[in-house]
């Protein structure tokens, strides 16, 4: 197997040119999808037989929670890629995505608290699911703090990659927390092997808003990465040409 494509992906210059025209369409498509899914879910989907209208916060809560975990998975994998292959692009990705993931985790926590008050009767309870998601949020905050407190770029890259990889252990804990222990949070509604435990008129808008949020986050990540590439590579010739071309 040839590894050329893989190594090419790690070159900031190649990545910058390849992703330049991709960020805006992804972000725009994501916004439209998210808006469509949210309006459908909040205004047109049927209400739940038990929870009534308060269940509609699922259309924000679930996409945010999925994205918070997906972003972390991507962070952990790029940490691994950096530690093994020393690719320049990997720490750029971590730096760009960590704050976005932190916002997603915070959104999941806050929307979950707002949802918990009317359904469970409490904003917060220290059960395994809620606590492990809080740990995920704190991991993100740790990564951001470490990134910003180390002035030496090489050291920061390595330290942040190490935490990202180690934090991967938290992901299966979040996923299986509702099965391994008894919790207040209910089990998974969606599994790969079984039919979803809700009708299509409820999960289709949820799927659309989740896809929308994925695209929106991908667009944001590409933009943030491009900015970071320009900052890190500001001494190289191609960046100077790129900046001159835009008439600065």
């Amino acid at each position, binding site marked *: 197997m040839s590894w050329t494509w893989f190594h090419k992906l790690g070159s900031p210059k190649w990545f910058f040119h390849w992703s330049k025209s991709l960020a805006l369409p992804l972000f725009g498509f994501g916004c439209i999808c998210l808006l469509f899914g949210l309006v459908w879910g909040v205004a047109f989907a*049927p209400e*739940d037989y038990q929870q009534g209208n308060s269940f509609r916060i699922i259309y924000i809560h679930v996409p945010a929670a999925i994205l918070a975990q997906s972003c972390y998975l991507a962070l952990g994998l790029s940490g*691994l890629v950096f*530690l093994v292959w020393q690719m320049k692009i990997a720490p750029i990705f971590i730096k760009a995505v960590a704050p976005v993931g932190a916002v997603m985790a915070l959104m999941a926590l806050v929307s979950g608290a707002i949802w918990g008050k009317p359904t*469970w*009767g409490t904003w917060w309870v220290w059960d395994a699911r809620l606590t492990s998601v809080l740990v995920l949020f704190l991991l993100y905050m740790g990564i951001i703090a470490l990134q910003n407190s180390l002035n030496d770029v090489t050291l920061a890259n390595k330290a942040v990659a190490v935490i990202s990889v180690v934090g991967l252990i938290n992901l299966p804990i979040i996923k299986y927390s509702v099965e391994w222990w*008894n919790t207040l949070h209910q089990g998974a509604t969606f599994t790969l092997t079984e039919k979803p*435990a809700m009708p299509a008129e409820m999960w289709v808008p949820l799927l659309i808003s989740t896809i929308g949020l994925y695209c929106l986050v991908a667009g944001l990540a590409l933009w943030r990465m491009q900015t970071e590439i320009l900052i890190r590579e500001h001494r190289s010739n191609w960046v100077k040409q790129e900046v001159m071309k835009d008439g600065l």
Partner: protein
Amino acid sequence: MHPVRKKRLFVIMIILVLLGSVVSLIMYALQQNINLFYSPSQIVTGEAPYNANIRAGGMVVEGSVARDPETLAVSFEVTDFRHKVKIEFNGILPDLFREGQGIVAQGKLNSNGVFVATQVLAKHDEKYMPPEVTEALENAQNTSLNNTSNIQPTY
């Protein structure tokens, strides 16, 4: 793959596996503390401590809810379909509280084996349904029940 990289990947994987097992052993040891509540079986068999602040969880038994008409006091039984525990509570129940619903109560187990709750939380399952569908399901169930009751005399 370059041998140096292969070695680095191998070392990282070993570290991850070791860390993973350390974390799982710690969580296994702390299982009692991570579990949010004691089940009725655990309480009946004496696994739960008396007069300590704990949580009890289970399904509210159909027909067991007794309300005091004068005050907010309410008593009901919860079950895990093996054992039952009586819970007494004086306060406002969550909207989702009803018979057949999962709940988690916080409070103390007194020496009579009655759980005196200071807070009751409603648990809900992972199923979501529009109200019309539940009605349709109930109707279908009723008609099938009627059918069976009609058929029964012929046996």
